């Protein structure tokens, strides 16, 4: 009989000591292993809605699609729109719709990866881009099995974003400051955003890009190629 509540049942305390994100982390581990075995570099792109993730992917595909095999998983709450934009560029893409969740998880990525392979029909895949759901908070909690996490902050969002969204900065290896062509139109302190981001994550690679003028795109492509051959 139970001492505390007298309910007539036996109560026991079981030590668990495991992460709240265990299911996701285990699936992420399996994804990463799978990518490694196939020599694929997986890149997780995270940002607020509209920072320019899909646009950056379109430019990246233009620059690289004849050199390397690219595939894309597009995460959104609803619609096939982003996957259609990618397919127009002649690259296979799978749309993952979360049906409400504000982030991708590694189980969904696993499913998407297998769907992508069907589209690839045996073609070689060197880089798998995973565009996360537009959200600067929640995606940073979920390891997807990626090798490289890239966070985008666009100029119109303001230079204060690293301090407001530290987890995204701390868990990423690269920060893209996108829409740099818009700097003249905003009170955007480029030095401050870099300083704040580096103080949160001293090893962060920071690249300013503009899909409009092409600024920084070469640096981004070189960074990717360098990671691919590492």
């Amino acid at each position, binding site marked *: 009989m139970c001492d505390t509540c007298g309910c007539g049942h036996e109560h*026991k305390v079981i030590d668990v000591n495991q992460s709240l994100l265990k299911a996701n982390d285990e699936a992420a581990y399996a994804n990463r292993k799978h990518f490694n075995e196939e020599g694929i570099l997986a890149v997780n792109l995270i940002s607020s809605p509209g920072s320019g993730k899909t646009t950056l992917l379109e430019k990246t595909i233009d620059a690289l699609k004849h050199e390397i095999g690219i595939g894309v998983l597009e995460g959104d709450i609803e619609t096939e729109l982003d996957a259609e934009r990618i397919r127009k560029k002649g690259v296979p893409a799978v749309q993952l719709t979360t049906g409400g969740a504000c982030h991708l998880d590694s189980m969904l990525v696993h499913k998407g990866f297998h769907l992508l392979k069907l589209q690839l029909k045996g073609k070689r895949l060197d880089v798998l881009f995973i565009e996360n759901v537009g959200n600067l*908070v929640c995606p940073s909690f979920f390891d997807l099995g990626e090798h490289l996490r890239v966070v985008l902050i666009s100029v119109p969002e303001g230079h204060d974003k690293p301090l407001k969204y530290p987890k995204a900065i701390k868990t990423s290896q690269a920060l893209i400051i996108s829409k740099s062509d818009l700097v003249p139109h905003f009170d955007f302190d480029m030095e401050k955003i870099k300083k704040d981001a580096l103080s949160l994550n001293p090893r962060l690679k920071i690249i300013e890009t503009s899909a409009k003028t092409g600024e920084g795109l070469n640096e981004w492509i070189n960074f990717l190629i360098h990671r691919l051959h590492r």
Partner: protein
Amino acid sequence: MHEVSIALGMIHELERIARENNAKKITNVKLKIGKMSGIVVDSLTFAFDAVKLENPVVSDAALSVEEVPLVYECNDCSKTFETDNLYFPSCPVCASYKLKIISGEEQHIENVEIEV
């Protein structure tokens, strides 16, 4: 609201733990959540209380959450101190910014109480 996903994952794990231990019910779940984990305890509790209702094994489970303070150790003078400054903490003794985090990033299930 990543807390909803976290709560759903938690229910999944609790069901497994209940099964493995032949538990009729889970009555309490003890969590450790660090101040810097980025998990909002109220949101997590709210989400858990909503999603637990779908499964009788966990529907009566209460959450007890221990919030773990943010503690750093100074690399320069070895002072250990607690702080609420999430972003730019510095050592209260020597003002150094070279700190090592000791606690505050926890996000785990410590133990569960079951009814057998």
